[in-house]
């Protein structure tokens, strides 16, 4: 079974069809996906800016990060669940969209960046927690995260124009 026929099968399932043809469900999921940006990427911005050495410099970087982490993950959970449903109901269009494919690749890169940060320089956070400007590796992780997410948002918004 090719990926395309799997996408076709997915959007033809009962759930896919009902979401696509509903008057209210699709707009509600889509709105949650857009407003969820503020709780996911919006909160991530704060911890990225701390890593880049721009805000809350007098507070330990780990504190700035750890305290909003559960909220941020809640935001990303909302984004993932609503995103899956949005894909589910228009999988073929998404499959044919270059913006969607780019978005998926960028999401994977963003995840790798986050994991590399957690397993890398963040393991030694004790050594730079109170530094006004964190070490280069942490600053790069912060910049990469913001640039990637800006690109992900752009791809997500732009793919909707092509649908």
């Amino acid at each position, binding site marked *: 079974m090719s990926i395309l026929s799997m996408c076709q099968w997915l959007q033809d399932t009962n759930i896919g069809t009902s979401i696509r043809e509903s008057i209210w469900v699709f*707009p509600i999921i*889509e*709105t949650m996906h*857009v*407003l969820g*940006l*503020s*709780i996911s*990427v*919006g*909160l991530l*911005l*704060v911890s990225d*800016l701390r890593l880049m050495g721009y*805000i*809350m410099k007098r*507070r330990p970087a780990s*504190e*700035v990060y750890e*305290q*909003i982490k559960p*909220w941020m993950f809640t935001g990303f959970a909302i984004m993932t669940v609503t995103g899956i449903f949005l894909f589910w109901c228009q999988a073929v269009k998404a499959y044919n969209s270059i913006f969607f494919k780019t978005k998926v690749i960028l999401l994977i890169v963003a995840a790798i960046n986050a994991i590399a940060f957690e397993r890398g320089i963040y393991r030694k956070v004790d050594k730079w927690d109170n530094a006004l400007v964190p070490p280069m590796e942490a600053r790069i992780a912060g910049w990469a995260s913001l640039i990637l997410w*800006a690109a992900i*948002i*752009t791809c997500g*918004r*732009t793919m909707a*124009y092509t649908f």
Partner: protein
Amino acid sequence: MSVIVPFFQWCDNTMISQAIRNSRVAFPVIENFHLFALTVLLGSLVVLVLRQFGLVYKTQPISEVASALRPWNRWSMAVMLTSGILLFLSEAMKCYGNTSFRVKMLFLFLALLFQFTIYNRTVAGEDKVAPVGGKIAAGVALCLWFGVGLAGRAIGFLG
């Protein structure tokens, strides 16, 4: 209502409006910036509101969190309004007949009014625990700004 129709028509016909309509990429690009700014504006508000509810950064005075976020809040608001005005100019007549647009403008007016008259004062204190009034104001500000976003999204869906 009809007295403001000529104003909307004028907005719809400015050089900027026509330039945006004639370009294939202008509208999507402007809307992308509108979305970036939404992320920063609502994101910084969410962090501050969480702080007022005592859910994050409890060791920092509320005013310290507020001042760390203020430039981000103000700049994103500026980008939001500028990009919003441009988007409006490009389809002013469409907006005129759009109920969600009217609801959005009402929410926007109330959100700005509330933020600059009441809400900003509730985050100015050095206290580490927000008084009940501060918490209520935080909830109201959050609802008003998310109301702007919700009504904004409805412009495209509901009309």
